[in-house]
């Protein structure tokens, strides 16, 4: 199992588990990233960070070190 951080541009992955805790983890979940959700990696910004994903029908921008906490398959 890898993290969202290592997902490549154009890949579609499914969320398996969320790491982290407290406010940040809650924020990530509030935005719709929950277990079983499908994520499409649209774009990786210049210099590799942040990452733009499509989730639940909208686009979200998330840092690579936050993406680290999202375990996907």
């Amino acid at each position, binding site marked *: 199992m890898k993290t969202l951080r290592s997902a490549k541009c154009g890949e579609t992955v499914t969320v398996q588990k969320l790491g982290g805790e407290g406010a940040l983890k809650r924020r990530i979940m509030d935005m719709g990233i929950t277990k079983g959700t499908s994520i499409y990696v649209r774009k990786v910004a210049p210099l590799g960070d942040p990452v*733009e994903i499509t989730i639940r029908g909208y686009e979200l921008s998330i840092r690579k070190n936050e993406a680290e906490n999202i375990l996907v398959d």
Partner: protein
Amino acid sequence: MAIKIALAGNPNCGKTTMFNDLTGSSQYVGNWPGVTVEKKEGRLRTHKDVVVTDLPGIYSLSPYTLEEVVTRNYILDEHPDVVIDLVDGSNIERNLYLTTQLTEMGLPVIIALNMIDIVQKNGDKIDVEKLSQALGCEVIETSAIKGTGSRQVAERAVQMALTGVKTHPGHTFSKPVEEALSGIESLIDGTVPQERLRWYSIKLFERDEKVLEKLELDADGKKRLEEIVSGLEAELDDDSESIITGERYQFIGKLVSQCVRKRQSGLTTSDKIDRVVTNRWLALPIFAAVMYIVYFVSVSWLGTIVTDWTNDTLFAETIQPAVGGWLEAVGAAGWLQGLIVDGIIGGVGAVLGFVPQMFILFFFLSILEDCGYMARVAFIMDRIFRKFGLSGKSFIPMLISSGCGVPGIMATRTIENEKDRRMTIMTTTFIPCGAKLPIIALIAGAVFPNITWMAPATYFFGIFMVVISGIILKKTKMFAGDPSPFVMELPQYHFPAPKGVLLHMWERGKAFIIKAGTVIFVACGIIWFLQSFGFGPEGLYMVEDENASLLAAIGGVIAPVFLPLGFGNWQAAVASVSGLVAKENVVGTFGVLFGLGEVGEDDPALLSMVPTLFATSASALAFMVFNLTCAPCFAAIGAIRREMMSAKWTWFAIGYMTVMAYVMGFIINQLGGFLFYGVSFGIGQVLALICVAALLWGLLRSYNPNKTARKPAVAGAHA
């Protein structure tokens, strides 16, 4: 008692538009007490006794951010009679997440399914009936932008408020969770209002710290609660918050798959554009090129043409002689002619001459903003910003500052992290605002007429100052800390509406014209007076030589301070100080002092006189840099004061900016003069080199007490 309607919803769902639509001009905007979260209230246009409160845009009702806490406290303590939940139909899943939470709070809720026009344009279909049934409340389709539906929603809301029928959530959680919730409910039954029982039990299940504080369970209750929650957490192998959140989204996911039919589409046009514009390698060069073109066209090219015409032809050849002639004809005294023609028209005219440039600049900036490009730029800049501890969110205030610093400073409210916020407030006025444009254009035009990239360069210099300030400050104890998380929504690209662009351009530009007619008008009058009169043996008299004037005397006191920067004369000193009132005054003051392009052959023109103030061209550059970077105008200082909410921080911000401005000006004058303009190497240059060294030290030293490079868990936003 007046009916209270609360307006809730995600950020960017059109809430403000609907609020404006419902309340018209009867709004009151302030802050929620004690916090920098904006509070907007107004009266319903159709029912003057109904109060509408616009709650902050939130994604959820967690206890973690200020906006969320303010909103839930409002609903719990202020007892609104009904909540209008604005749901963005084109982004429905995430929006409904908040809906599920609102319907649990035990008050009437009605859903306004907004942006229905976009939904229809996309070809998607939403079964409103089914949605309404499943969620437990009425759903009315609206398009706040087009103005349809909002009246209806308000009417229904008022009716609902009158009948007082509370909404019950249509969703339930899984059996084990429901059992746990029942258990918790029995713990607090009787201690909270019946209609809120469910909401409180869910919050307790999530171990919501604010609710725990509020309910003050006894030791026994706390133990029982912990047993229930931990038990379920162990059983489901997940923490309670995640369980609830996950199940909410599960419910929503299923609901949406039943009620919403999306038209399948491949890459949208937005995506195709993004491919190029935010491409890993091309994005930054493209941004640089775009800003270069914008500033080049506005200032160096089109702008200069228009401004030259305005100054030379319109004012100098037409208006000034005309007014002067008229005043003579009616027999007005000589000094009055001087005041009006040289002082006021000269000064205000000099500033107004640059207004066309401002409008052209604002025109371009409006296009860039309205089409959605600028949001992408924040995304691109995030990585660079993060290197020195700011997030891309700090970039948006900087963007706005390129028009006017005041709204830029206010826009920092979206930054949750207090330290980042303060740092952004302090540095956002480094980006040249519209009012600084005349300064740039004047110096560039008068001293560096052949360097067409001067104007864009100042914009990039502003960014450069923000960046190095960030690096240096982040390494000090005051500001060090983890960068804010950057979880940001990106809007779709869309073709900017011409009407919208022109409107925004006019909005920003209008302010400067009014400023010219008021603040600058008065300032020029005062400057003219001070420059025309002096104290002699018999008291006040009109001076022949302006060096004997009051202004020269005042300026003479300050001027020595600027000697190291190459402009230690009273004229430049006075101009700089006048910039505190409004940055345009720097040019306005010169306009009063030098006249615009006067009638007589001996009377010099603005452009040819200004360079004489400076020892070398490097000094002129230093002057420009100093004025662009030092303390902003009073209006901006006022905004800083309000946003910092602390006099100490305000002074610190102003002090920081002015000191940096001075140091930069010093370095540029000393080293620039030495390197390019034949100034010999002396103590000035040595000191300048020491300053450079000090800056480099501040930039390059290591200070990372909180470095959490590879740690998986992150503390993230410390609200």
